[in-house]
C-alpha cells in the first residue's frame, strides 16, 4: 500500500501575479471564446517614447481581449505592469477607451458587455504627460457611460498595484477584486514622502504601505469588494461571479453623503489608524444595505 502525501494547496496554485498582462487576461476568459484586438502584430506603438530613446512595446502595454466570461459577452483590458510600470500613454489610453466605448455600443444594442480592467499601473506615463492625463480623463468618462449598462470589474493583483490617476478609474468601478500583495492608492508612498516629508510617510516602511494601501485593508474597510488568493483559477472564479451578479444597486462613487459624513466624523488631529476603519466603515456599509 502506498502513501500519498497530498501537496499543499499553495504548491498547486497557478500564480496570477507571475503571468504577464496577456496571460492574465487570457486566464479570465472562457477558453476558446476570445480574440485579441489591436494586438502586437498591429504595431500601434507610442510615437513619443522613441523620441526620448525609450524602446516602445508593440501593444503599448495594453492588451484587449474580446470574448465571453461565464458565457456572457465581455471585454478584458489589461495593462502590462512590466512595461513602463503599466503607465498610461496616448495609445494604451486610446485602446482602453475605445474598448469601453465599443462595449457600451454593444450594450446599447442589447448585447450587454461587461468590462474587466486589469489595473497594474502607476498612472500617467510621464514621458507622455498631458496625453496620458487626458487619456485617463477619457477612460473615466467612458467608464461612466458603460456603467449605466453593464458592470465594470477591476482586478488589482500586484506587484505594481494601482496608483496615480488610474486609481480614480478603480474608484469608479462596479467591483474591485484584490490580492493581498496588491496595493491601491492615489499617491504612492515615495511621492508622499517626496511631497510631504518622511514624517508623513516613510516610503521604506513596507508594513505601513500595506497596512494602508494593501488589498486586505482596502477590502476590510469596504472600499474594495473581494480579497482573493494569488491564484489564476480563484481570480477567474471571482470575476465570473461579478459578471453574473451584474450591476450593483449603487456604485461606491455615487455614495456622496455616506462618505462625506464619514470624512467629517474623522479625528484628523493625528494620523488615522487603518484598523479602526475596518470597524467603523465596513460595518456601516452593511447596515445601510449598500452592498
Amino acid at each position, binding site marked *: 500500500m502506498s502513501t500519498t502525501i497530498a501537496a499543499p494547496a499553495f504548491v498547486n496554485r497557478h500564480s496570477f501575479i507571475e503571468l504577464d498582462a496577456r496571460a492574465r487576461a487570457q486566464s479570465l476568459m472562457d477558453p476558446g471564446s476570445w*480574440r485579441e484586438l489591436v494586438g502586437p502584430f498591429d504595431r500601434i506603438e507610442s510615437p513619443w517614447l522613441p523620441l526620448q530613446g525609450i524602446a516602445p512595446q508593440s501593444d503599448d502595454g495594453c492588451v484587449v481581449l474580446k470574448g465571453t466570461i461565464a458565457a456572457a459577452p465581455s471585454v478584458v483590458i489589461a495593462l502590462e505592469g512590466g512595461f513602463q510600470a503599466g503607465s498610461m500613454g496616448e495609445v494604451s489610453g486610446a485602446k482602453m477607451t475605445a*474598448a469601453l466605448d465599443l462595449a457600451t455600443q454593444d450594450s446599447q444594442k442589447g448585447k450587454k458587455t461587461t468590462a474587466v480592467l486589469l489595473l497594474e499601473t502607476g498612472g500617467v506615463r510621464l514621458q507622455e504627460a*498631458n496625453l496620458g492625463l487626458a487619456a485617463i480623463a477619457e477612460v473615466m468618462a467612458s467608464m461612466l457611460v458603460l456603467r449605466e449598462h453593464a458592470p465594470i470589474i477591476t482586478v488589482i493583483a500586484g506587484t505594481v498595484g494601482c496608483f496615480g490617476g488610474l486609481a*480614480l478609474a478603480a474608484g469608479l468601478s462596479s467591483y474591485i477584486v484584490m490580492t493581498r500583495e496588491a496595493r491601491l492608492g*492615489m499617491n504612492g508612498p515615495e511621492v508622499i514622502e517626496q511631497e510631504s516629508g518622511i514624517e*508623513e510617510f516613510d516610503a521604506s516602511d513596507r508594513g505601513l504601505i500595506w497596512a494602508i494601501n494593501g488589498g486586505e485593508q482596502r477590502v476590510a474597510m469596504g472600499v474594495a469588494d473581494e480579497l482573493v488568493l494569488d491564484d489564476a483559477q480563484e481570480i477567474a472564479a471571482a470575476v465570473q461571479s461579478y459578471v453574473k451578479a451584474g450591476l450593483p444597486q449603487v456604485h461606491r462613487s455615487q455614495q456622496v453623503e455616506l462618505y462625506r459624513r464619514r470624512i467629517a466624523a474623522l479625528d484628523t488631529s493625528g*494620523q488615522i489608524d487603518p484598523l479602526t476603519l475596518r470597524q467603523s466603515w465596513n460595518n456601516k456599509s452593511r447596515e445601510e444595505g449598500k452592498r
Partner: protein
Amino acid sequence: MSGQVGLRGKVWFQALTGRDCPLEGDPGSVLTADATLGNETARFLCVVPNPAARFPCARRGEVGLEESYTLAMRVREAIEQDANGTKRPLIAIVDIKSQAYGRREETVAIFLATATAADAYASARMKGHPVIALVVGQAISGGFLTHGYQANRILAFDGSDVVIHAMHKEAAARITLRSVADLDRLGHQIAPMSYDIHDFARLGLLHELLHIADPDKPSPATVAQVQKSLMEAVADARAGSKDLSHRLTSEGAREMRKAGLAARALMEEQWHHD
C-alpha cells in the same frame, strides 16, 4: 504673476459671482455660488487654499478629501435641483496645486473621494448640464482629474504661470532623474510633455485660450470678456454631445493624437469582425 497657487482662483470666483466665502457648512477650501451668466444662472465652483483645513496636507490649494466630497455634493445638488428643468451650467474655476499628498488621505481612500467628485461632474455633463472648466492658474494631475477634466469644454488663460500637466516640474525632474532644464528642453521637442500652455493648446483639448491683460486684478472689461467666452462655451457645449468625443475630433487631435486615433479606428474595425 500670482504668488500662491489658488489665490487667482479666488479672485476669479469673486469676480464672476460677487461672493468670496463657502456655502454654509462647507469647508473653507470649496467656494460654490449660483450667479448670473448671461441670461441664466450658473453654478460656479472653485477650490482655494484654506490654512485652517482639518487635513494638514490640504491647506494650500490641493484637492483633498473634504474638497472632493464637497464638490461632489454641490454638483449633485445642482443636478437634483434641475432634474425637471433647465440644466444650469457648472463652471469649475481651476487653480489648484495638485491632489493632496498625505497619509491620512491615503488611509481614508482619497482615490475614492476624487473618483466621487469626477463622477458627479461627469454625471452632470451626461444629464445635459454644460460643464465648463476655466483654468486660470494651475491644473495638475489628480486635482484636475477631479475638478475640471470631466468638462464639456476647457478654457485656459494664456500666461506663463498657467500650467496644465501631469506632475509639477520639480517632482517630475526628480522622478525621471532629469534636470528641470532638461525637462524644458524635452517639452519643446515633445509637446505633450511641455509645461507651456501654448503647447497644451496644440493637443486639441482646449476650447479657447484667453488673452487676459490683468489676470490677478481683472477690470470690469476683463471680467466681461471672460463671461462672454464662458457663455459661448456653454452654448457650444449645449449644441454638442454629452460625451468627450469632441476632444478627439479637434484639429489638434488630428494633428497630435494620430496614433491614438489609429488605435481607436482599428479597434472599431476589429471589434465587429465576428
